[in-house]
């Protein structure tokens, strides 16, 4: 029997946008979910994705993807591959499992929202496949992480992370709920499929897979790159939405891109930056974080938005400058506040590693070298306690990440500063100028209490380190620590010590 080709029937069966007579159109497609705004509702009739799939094709293809991914997992299950992985690399995967598994579930909600409220049958059809994709991603990520729980309690945070009030998931919930759950579906299609899935997930799911494969983690590389094949398809909901929005309301299109790009860039600097430039063993690094950002975001994504008729975001210079600082500062913060994270942050500043960092980031030694020197000398003076936190970092009121970005002063010194805003009787602090600007433009939406706000309001009791760790859901078996202090300090044993660490070292040698 000869089957009709998809293109011979798909347009007909998908055209389900009949005129309702029993209920008001507005009751079925309320504006607050559909978000058409200045776009005439009839304009959405022109929505059409160019990368098409039918349900039979979808099922057959997804079955092939699942079979091959689980086959690799099964083949490796009886090997020693996991035991042989570097602790730094394992930390990169723990960050991923905890940071991503339940974000995939939030994406299910986002796709379902578009499947219900998208103002075109083709769009709702694509989003229906999209939610099936995201369900797969939530399940496969949770399942793959679960395999290791018996060997290392930190993998339990694969499922646990987003159910806690740890500062990392607070920051990520703030970003992703704002991107996937709260918006109307037009904004959602620009934020999730267009910005996040066409741009940033490529960085974590494809670029990081290059480091994964080099590090010998075939299973992880296989899983994340398989996930991204789904993203490549359902992210195509972004393009047609963008074309219609740009035609009728380009100012709104630009704002939604600008806001979601910035939030994504901040989160990935924390999630992907340290994984690529510090946790991945030096000999296995394919490119630096900055180089991967240049390849996937600057060359690929920015060309895409310009092709749709939009401009680079207004904060472009601040973003580009941040490629040399943000993730280095965040890495230092993740390492310093290591008892608050569910992985083992590897400092990654041995002489060889520092030479690599300096080759990729010419200003690295100037800005970060002396701070790490203090840590190194304290560790070599057998005073690890001096490298542990006794206070909390100030968290940005927009991205909820620590205010830890170094910027140059007029005299050439690099200093960490905050951008402040007095609003509604309160002083707010921000990690960057653009976080401050986004807060001001969107203050009724992004104005949520940071962990520090909660602490100062007395919501966290007792008000000490133990109370904070308990509030975060952190337990001793999962609490982060450096996996190997000697690995990055032994190069410097016996050198002359200056500065803050000098007093400790003198004390230790007397």
């Amino acid at each position, binding site marked *: 029997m000869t089957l009709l*080709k998809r293109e011979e029937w798909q347009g007909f069966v998908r055209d389900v946008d009949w005129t309702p007579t029993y209920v008001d159109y507005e009751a079925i497609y309320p504006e607050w979910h559909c978000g058409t705004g200045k776009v005439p509702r009839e304009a959405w009739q022109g929505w059409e994705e160019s990368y098409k799939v039918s349900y039979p*094709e979808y099922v057959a*293809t997804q079955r092939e993807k699942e079979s091959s991914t689980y086959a690799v997992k099964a083949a490796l299950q009886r090997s020693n591959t996991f035991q042989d992985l570097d602790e730094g690399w394992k930390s990169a995967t723990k960050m991923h499992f905890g940071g991503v598994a339940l974000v995939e579930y939030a994406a299910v909600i986002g796709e379902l929202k578009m499947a219900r409220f998208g103002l075109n049958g083709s769009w709702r059809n694509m989003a229906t496949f999209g939610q099936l994709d995201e369900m797969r991603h939530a399940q496969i990520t949770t399942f793959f992480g679960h395999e290791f729980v018996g060997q290392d309690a930190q993998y339990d945070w694969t499922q646990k992370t987003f159910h806690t009030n740890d500062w990392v998931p607070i920051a990520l919930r703030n970003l992703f709920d704002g991107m996937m759950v709260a918006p109307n579906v037009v904004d959602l299609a620009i934020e999730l499929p267009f910005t996040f899935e066409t741009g940033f997930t490529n960085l974590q799911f494809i670029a990081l897979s290059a480091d994964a494969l*080099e590090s010998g983690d075939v299973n992880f*590389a296989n899983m994340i790159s398989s996930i991204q*094949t789904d993203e*490549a398809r359902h992210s195509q909901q972004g*393009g047609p939405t963008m074309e219609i929005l740009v035609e009728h309301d380009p100012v709104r299109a630009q704002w939604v891109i600008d806001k979601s790009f910035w939030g994504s860039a901040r989160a990935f600097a924390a999630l992907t930056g340290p994984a690529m430039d510090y946790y991945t063993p030096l000999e296995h690094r394919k490119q630096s974080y900055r180089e991967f950002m240049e390849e996937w975001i600057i060359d690929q994504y920015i*060309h895409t938005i310009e*092709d749709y008729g939009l401009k680079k975001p207004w904060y472009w210079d601040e973003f580009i400058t941040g490629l040399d600082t943000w993730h280095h500062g965040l890495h230092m913060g993740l390492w310093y506040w290591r008892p608050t994270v569910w992985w083992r942050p590897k400092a990654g500043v041995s002489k060889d590693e520092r030479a690599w960092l300096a080759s990729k980031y010419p200003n690295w030694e100037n800005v970060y070298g002396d701070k790490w020197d203090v840590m190194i000398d304290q560790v070599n003076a057998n005073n690890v306690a001096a490298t542990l936190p006794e206070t909390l970092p100030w968290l940005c009121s927009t991205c909820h990440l620590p205010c830890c970005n170094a910027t140059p002063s007029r005299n050439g010194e690099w200093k960490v500063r905050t951008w402040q805003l007095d609003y509604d009787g309160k002083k707010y602090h921000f990690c960057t100028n653009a976080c401050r600007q986004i807060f001001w433009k969107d203050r009724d939406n992004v104005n949520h209490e940071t962990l520090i706000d909660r602490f100062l309001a007395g919501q966290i009791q007792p008000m000490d380190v133990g109370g904070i760790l308990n509030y975060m859901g952190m337990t001793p078996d999962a609490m982060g620590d450096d996996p190997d202090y000697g690995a990055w300090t032994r190069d410097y044993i016996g050198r002359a010590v200056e500065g803050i660490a000098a007093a400790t070292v003198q004390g230790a040698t007397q």
Partner: protein
Amino acid sequence: MNSVVGPILRMGDQIEEVIAAIRDDNPDQDIEVVDRGSYVRIQGHDRIRVTQNTLRGYLGADYEIRSFGTMMSSFVGRVVNNSDEIVWENIKRTASPEGVLAHD
């Protein structure tokens, strides 16, 4: 360069065959390959295509072009597909409407 278009394939055992098929289907293009280990960028300029027939020549007579979706983890440009071929083209359009393949 802004006019680069093409698929990005994940790690797998069919990459060389796909590259050969794309080169066959785009004889007037110099197809560039960027190999980063776990992913490979295959890129041409403005518009490149691959057909099910050519893919079948390399991957077997029963190869279904829908299976290309298991390999393609990303792409540059706009992807347009039907039951016989996949096209990667510039996002900026000059003439053809959305979803219509501009056959050679």
